[in-house]
């Protein structure tokens, strides 16, 4: 008897609750943006939270509201970003894969070390103590903190300077955050004309410490027909959106600090 009553009561409660849910679901239905549902369909749906949002639903809402980039899903990568880009009507240009690039050319042949650094082998630790390792205040310290944090092992220390392998790079941005000198930036994969120096000092000072540094002569700015390279103080900087990869600036650069496009040199320098 007890079992019977229990079953009946619980079943009734269950039905009432279920009906209540259905009713409220219908009554308080909020029309979702069509694009949001479509974007949600494209996302992997494992709610990993790697994008920084609470789940794929929240991510879809953020993408539609323009808060998150279309390629914000690190799991889905490019294929997913392309699909979402199609839904959102964003230019394929914006979706281009980015790779990390180390903006320093100060290898052993171009610059020298200040002395023998014997502290902790970590750029951040050295920077904290005001140590520069190399002579250039702005250049790569060569202690390999970026290589240590790279989850893809895409960064190698070559001749005292970090070099990113663009094929392995997934543009996670960990190295960008790690570098105490702010040397690493994410660059669209197809852009090969990059000023590979961050030294903001005036020409003579730069020449003193490194033979491959930007001396701020602004020859490159005069060469450019597309308004794609500008001086920031005494340091040239490429505006990637305008750059057509013609490579004229790289040809003229007296310090050869601007990397050249693939077509002109056969390889990126």
């Amino acid at each position, binding site marked *: 008897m007890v079992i019977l009553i229990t079953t009946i009561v619980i079943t009734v409660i269950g039905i009432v609750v279920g009906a209540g849910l259905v009713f*409220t679901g219908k009554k308080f239905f909020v029309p979702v943006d069509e694009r949001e549902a479509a974007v949600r369909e494209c996302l992997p749906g494992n709610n990993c939270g790697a994008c920084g949002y609470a789940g794929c639903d929240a991510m879809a809402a953020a993408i539609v509201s323009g808060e998150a980039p279309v390629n914000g899903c690190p799991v889905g990568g490019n294929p997913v970003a392309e699909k979402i880009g199609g839904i959102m009507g964003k230019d394929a240009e914006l979706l281009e894969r980015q790779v990390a690039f180390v903006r320093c050319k100060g290898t052993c042949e171009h610059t020298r070390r200040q002395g023998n650094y014997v502290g902790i082998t970590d750029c951040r630790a050295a920077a904290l103590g005001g140590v520069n390792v190399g002579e250039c205040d702005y250049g790569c310290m060569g202690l390999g903190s970026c290589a240590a944090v790279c989850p893809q092992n895409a960064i190698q220390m070559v001749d005292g300077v970090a070099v990113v392998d663009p094929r392995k790079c997934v543009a996670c941005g960990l190295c960008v955050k790690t570098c105490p000198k702010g040397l690493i930036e994410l660059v669209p994969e197809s852009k090969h004309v990059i000023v590979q120096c961050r030294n903001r000092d005036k020409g003579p000072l730069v020449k003193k410490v490194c033979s491959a540094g930007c001396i701020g002569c602004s020859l490159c700015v005069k060469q450019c027909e597309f308004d794609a390279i500008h001086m920031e103080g005494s340091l040239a900087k490429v505006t990637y959106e305008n750059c057509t990869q013609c490579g004229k600036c790289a040809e003229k650069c007296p310090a050869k600090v601007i990397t050249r496009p693939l077509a002109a040199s056969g390889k990126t320098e």
Partner: protein
Amino acid sequence: MKSLILIMISGALINNVVLNQFLGICSFLGVSKQMKASASLGVAVIFVLTIASAVASILYDLVLKPFNLDFMKTIVFILVIAALVQIVEMFLKKTSPAIYKALGIYLPLITTNCAVLGVALTNVQNGYNFIECVLSGFGTAVGYTLAIVLLAGIRSRIREEDLPAPLRGAPIVLISAALMSIAFMGFSGLSF
């Protein structure tokens, strides 16, 4: 009147749900990393616990008691609270998107918080009537919010300290929570 105030204060401080009854520890430790997140979780808990206590009380008095189904209260409460949170969520999404956004993911998360179920069960065990249940639920939730916001504040300070390596991360958080619990034991001497 005095007993009602007493129920609230007892729920918030003396029988603090986290630090004295050790319920809802998971979200207490999990969400207290940031002050903002813990505050919104606290508000969501206040919201849900008050409503859940009210509904649980009605259900117990009108359905479970007359049918002598006292032993089924755990299952029924789980069922009803889960559905209730869902309904409240839908209701909020439609009527006040601002609140819905502020509570965010924490509203559905609370469905599985044992503090909510625990309070509903303790209420009926203590034989509270409807108003007492609501106030007890509200007081308990305020106590939860107090505890989690305090811990979030402590954690934000701990982060900047230079701790011995073995204590970094979870251990120091557990030690802080334990110390908070001991501190809250002081409230048990509170009398009126």
